[in-house]
């Protein structure tokens, strides 16, 4: 339609953010075209501040001028109204939907928090505690994958679903963690299903199209690390916890 007003989709983002990556993965997998706008989080745009005044954080999806905030909410919105191609991100059966929501919540509450702590913990003890909790969470998710996938490659079964994207958004930083800290988040020796899952996920064209450059992300992480715990925490907070 002329004028660019109807059904126009914009995404306000910040390239290191795993939450922004979740939104980009969903849009890419669904084949939805949109305008991507990179935000400078140190100098936030008027559009960002008016679209998300409560959190002033990314990602923000703007559809037909109306903002949607929080990656989990954006994913559900995309599924409900943008649809696009392919099967739904959320299953049809109410109980299966509840399980997907449960695991998405678990990923945010347990795994993301723990991983943030491994980067931004104020002491070595805090970071180590984060590492342990992250490992425990990944182990639990291995069981979740087994239950949800029922032998298929993804949490969503044959195709990528809501939980796959919620977890998949974290893969870029998992790669960075391996390079910088020598720790495999999805270790084939400990969690073979998840290791295979991350490979399967990573090879999809729609995923490769939006994954940030790992070398660039490593540089970003390294630039922040040597300046001490406070700066690392601030960087981790900005990049990794811009919004859930």
């Amino acid at each position, binding site marked *: *339609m002329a004028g660019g*007003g*109807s*059904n126009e989709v914009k995404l306000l983002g910040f390239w290191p953010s795993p939450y922004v990556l979740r939104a980009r993965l969903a849009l890419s997998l669904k084949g939805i075209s949109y305008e991507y706008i990179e935000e400078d989080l140190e100098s936030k745009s008027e559009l960002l501040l008016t679209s998300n005044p*409560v959190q002033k954080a990314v990602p923000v999806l703007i*559809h*037909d001028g*109306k903002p*949607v*905030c*929080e990656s*989990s*909410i*954006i994913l*559900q*919105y995309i599924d*409900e*109204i943008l*649809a696009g191609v392919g099967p*739904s991100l959320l299953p*049809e*059966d*109410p*109980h299966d*939907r*509840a*399980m997907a*929501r*449960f695991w998405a*919540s*678990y990923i945010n509450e347990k795994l993301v928090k723990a991983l943030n702590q491994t980067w931004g913990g104020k002491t070595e003890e805090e970071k180590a505690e984060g590492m342990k909790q992250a490992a425990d969470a990944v182990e*639990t998710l291995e069981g979740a994958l087994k239950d949800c996938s029922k032998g298929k490659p993804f949490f969503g079964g044959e195709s990528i679903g809501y939980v796959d994207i919620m977890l998949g958004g974290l893969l870029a930083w998992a790669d960075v963690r391996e390079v910088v800290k020598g720790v495999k988040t999805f270790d084939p020796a400990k969690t073979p299903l998840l290791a295979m899952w991350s490979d399967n996920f990573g090879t999809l064209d729609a995923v490769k199209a939006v994954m940030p450059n790992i070398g660039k992300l490593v540089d970003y992480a390294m630039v922040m690390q040597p300046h001490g715990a406070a700066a690392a925490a601030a960087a981790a907070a900005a990049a990794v916890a811009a919004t*859930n």
Partner: protein
Amino acid sequence: MYAQSWSSDRALDQLAQHHLDLPAMDHQQEEKVQLLGMWASPYVYKVKWALSIKGVEYEYVEEDLRNKSSQLLEHNPVHKKVPVLVYNGKPVAESDVIIEFIEDAWKGHGGRILPEDPHERAMARFWVRFVPDKLSPRIWKWFTTAGGEEQDAAREASVEQLQVLEEKLTLGGNEFFGGDSVGLVDLSLGALAYVIPMYEEIIGERLVTEDMFPSLYAWMGRFLAAPPVKDHLPPMEELKLRFRAMREYFVKNSA
């Protein structure tokens, strides 16, 4: 409503089709619904109110959280917490997840919990997060800080967040955050309607006054009197004792 939001008929068709595709659960066959809960948990009440909106009959099971039942541990092995809703033997845990399940499973029954419009639904889900992310921690901090400057700061921080809600409610111009009736956001905030007055009484200091928060103050009374809520409230005197004991503990253990 859709005519305002959508200029594309194709998008409207897709939306309608998606909603038609979601299978309505067959409630005509015998269904067994159990709610595992604990009398003082606000999350349990949130679920009770949601079940009430939908008119669902269920069996309530009181759990002793110091001595968790094998049923609870079996149905929520990950968190071992209440509430857990068990629908025909299948468990659902986490109150926000349970409420979305209740909306999905009893689609077409009773009242709506989530808005019909997808964007409004996204906004409602966003405001649900406001409670644990921004509001509750600050109110809790105010309640558990002994006094002095630290408590004043906690109170100010709480007031700041409450003002956000006051503005939202005033601008909305409705009886409830959900419109004419209790909705998802009301359910998420709901426990504060009885908790805040209790904290105020225990501390001896007001937080939400009619002067400062005319809309929110009125909403609190309206919420507690609303049909899905009024017969499903915790035993207030027992709860007050419990909160008093908590406050004493925190005051004693501070500084």
